[in-house]
């Protein structure tokens, strides 16, 4: 059976939700309306750091059309704190506002205009406090503390070992070591070192965060939310309101992009709180500027030292990484340890010392963003790798190839062995960019590689139902946010059960209906949720085979599924016929169950990654020496994906990842001055436009069916973004001799560096 050619898996079928999206019928949270629904608006702190001495909502509450007006001090009837690492974040500021834009009060009213007007009637007495806006300020001796006292840990098992440093702004420290890095660096023939900065950037999902919350007459809560993890949101709300998980229902319509910005609770706690106070459904829809005040990527500074032998063998890496996680931890501590864990990239390094700190500042909370801490470290290591190649007088491609981890090699004791072929990705990228041929005189080329672990341990469950007419329902909680998971899950079920795609329906995530899935992030949905769907569909298949074996008098091993029927050597039984035989009537259904739960292991982060995400990027750039403007002319991404379940969707995702990577490489940075965010709107925060994209952009895949996911698939979608910055900077360095250490590579930075460059011979 396994040798059967695949009918739909591996084929570039159009996405199953394409028609509803091109006709405007696809529904997003902000498209929903409930009877009696109120509209919420949020009053936000104008200060980066302030004591909130008093919030008076009396006049707002009295305004006609207002159903509820709340301040932090009003939240005595619930636990107002939430957060996936530390429950350090109040729904509304209590006593202290810790960043500009922090919610201080909120109103639910008959319409948005009334709610907005009511905000004007709220009187807040602030006492501005000294803020810490940067890593340097936050880590200074006697720095003002963003949080006094230690908050309780959240619900992540591996974060129960959170290690804050009391009395400082360090909310978590992570260390990892093997061998003796100091001694190995001391004995290395060539040691290179430098420090690299990565900016705070915003996801700019075109759909800002939104939630609609409604409590029913029995005290149960339903939320329609733009979230990547309905099940994590459910946990937060259950704790806040002290209700059983079973009485909280989180429904997720289409998401207008996620990229990590919609992981863990964001607006949902406030929407649910307002709905309870207003005693009616409440819709809370953020604006784009409010999204900039909700979450961002953790900015970082990373100092790396790498020691090589004369022959190019990498022997040691020491790395000190500080991440700015902003005013509340969100998932920042996990970003920090997860990113730092793979600071050595896809290389064999016997001696390692990695230290990282998550640091509070009075800025927008930092959380998950495509790459989850790895882009910051890959920027440093992959830039430094080219510096080493120069010092060793080696070709950067060859030096990487020499040091790659091999397929099957251990990355760290107890963790999953390397499950891909890096040298194959590198060779294909080098070939596609034309590495061995000299570029035009005004062009430079660079490469970079990446390795990333997925979240572990994690759990995905799925249910597949085969109905009396032979159609199929898939129940799973992977969120469709544009990446195409609904299509991929459809393909997997259709493949296993041998039915057309149109006979399969994937139900939108709904915690009352679709089973547990930990999170739609970490590139895990195809590998983990997809595998659960495959197992559930195989469960249904086995039930069909058993029915047919019994009724046809044939051994199950002689049967197979084909075109909606169980096929025996001489006979076939359609699914409706099989079900009718089983149930003795034209009703009933077969239910299959899939559970993927690898559990905890001895791996350093507590679980073994279900797959390694691996990719290589190659860039060809030009620079305008007069203005410093860098242009990426050509870009090649090669990702080792095991198997592309849908090559069309995967290519689209990786193209998007490259262009998003070009954003933080060339354009994007959240800029603060005097405690204020200067560019928190799309008028002044520039994301890549169509005309910012490379003239040639190719995304390739290495497919050796060596992944643990369905049909040998691994996760994908983050890998294309991560090598972009170092590949571009390496290309710029090879073209101009200028090495930049701070992103983004703005024209001003490049121009200044070109001017400071010593004249070339």
């Amino acid at each position: 059976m396994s040798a059967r050619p695949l009918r739909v898996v591996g084929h570039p079928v159009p996405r199953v939700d394409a028609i509803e999206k091109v006709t405007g019928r696809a529904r997003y949270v902000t498209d929903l309306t409930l009877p009696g629904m109120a509209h919420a608006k949020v009053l936000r702190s104008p200060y980066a750091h302030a004591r909130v001495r008093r919030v008076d909502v009396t006049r707002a509450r009295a305004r006609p059309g207002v159903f509820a007006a709340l301040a932090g001090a009003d939240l005595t009837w619930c636990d107002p704190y939430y957060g996936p690492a530390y429950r350090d974040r109040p729904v509304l500021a209590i006593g202290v506002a810790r960043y500009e834009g922090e919610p201080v009060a909120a109103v639910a009213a008959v319409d948005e205009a009334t709610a907005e007007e009511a905000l004007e009637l709220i009187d807040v007495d602030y006492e501005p406090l000294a803020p810490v806006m940067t890593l340097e300020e936050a880590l200074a001796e006697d720095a003002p503390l963003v949080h006094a006292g230690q908050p309780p840990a959240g619900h992540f098992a591996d974060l129960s070992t959170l290690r804050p440093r009391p009395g400082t702004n360090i909310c978590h420290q992570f260390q990892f070591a093997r061998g003796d890095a100091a001694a190995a660096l001391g004995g290395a023939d060539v040691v290179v070192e430098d420090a690299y900065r990565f900016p705070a950037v915003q996801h700019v999902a075109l759909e800002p965060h939104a939630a609609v919350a409604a409590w029913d007459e029995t005290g149960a809560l339903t939320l329609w939310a733009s979230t990547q993890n309905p099940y994590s949101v459910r946990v937060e709300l259950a704790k806040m309101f002290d209700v059983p998980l079973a009485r909280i229902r989180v429904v997720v319509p289409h998401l207008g992009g996620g990229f990590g910005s919609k992981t863990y609770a964001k607006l949902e706690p406030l929407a649910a709180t307002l709905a309870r106070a207003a005693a009616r459904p409440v819709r809370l829809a953020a604006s784009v500027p409010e999204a900039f005040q909700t979450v961002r990527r953790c900015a970082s500074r990373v100092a790396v030292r790498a020691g090589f032998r004369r022959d190019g063998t990498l022997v040691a890496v020491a790395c000190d990484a500080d991440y700015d996680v902003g005013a509340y931890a969100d998932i920042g501590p996990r970003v920090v340890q997860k990113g730092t864990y793979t600071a050595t990239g896809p290389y064999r390094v016997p001696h390692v010392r990695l230290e990282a700190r998550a640091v509070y500042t009075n800025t927008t909370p930092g959380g998950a963003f495509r790459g989850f801490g790895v882009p910051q470290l890959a920027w440093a290591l992959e830039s430094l790798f080219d510096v080493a190649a120069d010092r060793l007088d080696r070709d950067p491609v060859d030096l990487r190839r020499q040091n790659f981890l091999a397929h099957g090699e251990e990355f760290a004791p107890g963790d999953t062995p390397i499950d891909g072929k890096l040298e194959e990705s590198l060779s294909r990228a080098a070939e596609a960019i034309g590495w061995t041929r000299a570029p035009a005189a005004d062009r430079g080329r660079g490469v970079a590689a990446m390795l990333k672990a997925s979240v572990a341990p994690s759990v995905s469950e799925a249910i597949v139902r085969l109905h009396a007419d032979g159609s199929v329902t898939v129940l799973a909680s992977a969120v469709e946010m544009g990446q195409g998971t609904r299509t991929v899950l459809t393909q997997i079920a259709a493949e296993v059960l041998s039915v057309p795609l149109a006979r399969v329906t994937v139900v939108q995530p709904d915690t009352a209906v679709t089973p547990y899935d930990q999170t739609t992030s970490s590139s895990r949905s195809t590998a983990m949720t997809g595998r659960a769907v495959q197992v559930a569909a195989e469960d249904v298949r086995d039930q069909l085979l058993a029915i047919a074996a019994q009724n046809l008098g044939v051994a199950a091993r002689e049967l197979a599924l084909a075109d909606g029927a169980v096929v025996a050597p001489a006979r076939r039984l359609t699914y409706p016929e099989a079900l009718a035989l089983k149930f003795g009537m034209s009703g009933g259904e077969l239910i299959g169950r899939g559970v993927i739960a690898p559990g905890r292991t001895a791996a350093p982060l507590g679980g073994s990654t279900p797959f390694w995400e691996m990719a290589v990027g190659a860039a060809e750039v030009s620079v305008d020496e007069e203005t410093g403007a860098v242009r990426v002319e050509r870009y090649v991404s090669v990702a080792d994906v095991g198997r592309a379940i849908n090559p069309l969707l995967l290519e689209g995702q990786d193209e998007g990842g490259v262009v998003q990577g070009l954003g933080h490489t060339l354009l994007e940075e959240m800029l603060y001055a005097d405690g204020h965010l200067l560019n928190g709107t799309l008028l002044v925060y520039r994301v890549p436009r169509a005309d910012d994209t490379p003239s040639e952009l190719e995304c390739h895949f290495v497919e050796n069916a060596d992944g643990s996911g369905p049909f040998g698939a691994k996760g994908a979608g983050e890998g294309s973004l991560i090598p972009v910055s170092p590949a571009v900077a390496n290309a710029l360095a090879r073209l101009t001799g200028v090495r930049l250490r701070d992103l983004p590579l703005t024209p001003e930075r490049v121009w200044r560096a070109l001017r400071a460059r010593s004249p070339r011979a």
Partner: protein
Amino acid sequence: MTIRLVVNGRPRDLEVAPHALLLDVLRDTLDLKGAKRSCDTQVCGACTVLVDGLAVSACTYLAVEADGRSVLTVEGLADGESLHPLQRAFVEAGAVQCGFCTSGMLLTAKAMLAENRTPTRDDVLHYLRGSLCRCTGYRKIVDAVLAAAETAR
């Protein structure tokens, strides 16, 4: 104020506030949710609709300005169940991901093709400067627009 306009081919008499935005009237009064609210500042293009064939940002366009005009939203693009060539091209080229920019992209592309039936790739890249997409990297959107232009010839 009473305004009279044609929306997706259908005449409408509407009572609107003088400050009402076309986007809110389309989404809330007419329940046409295809145009999306995002940046509110005419940068992202998610709310783009056509007014007398010209692409406008409905988030910053007063409903009263549409008085006496004809408005096309994404809901009016297909001919019954038969997709517009642009819609078909977007589906086939993989130009849709999250879908939040899609309606604006389609209508912007329609406005462009009305001006220029034989666009080059650079023409399309330039015309789409006012339409942001964070998912696709734009390449497949541009491919789709060029394919639709080809089909139309």
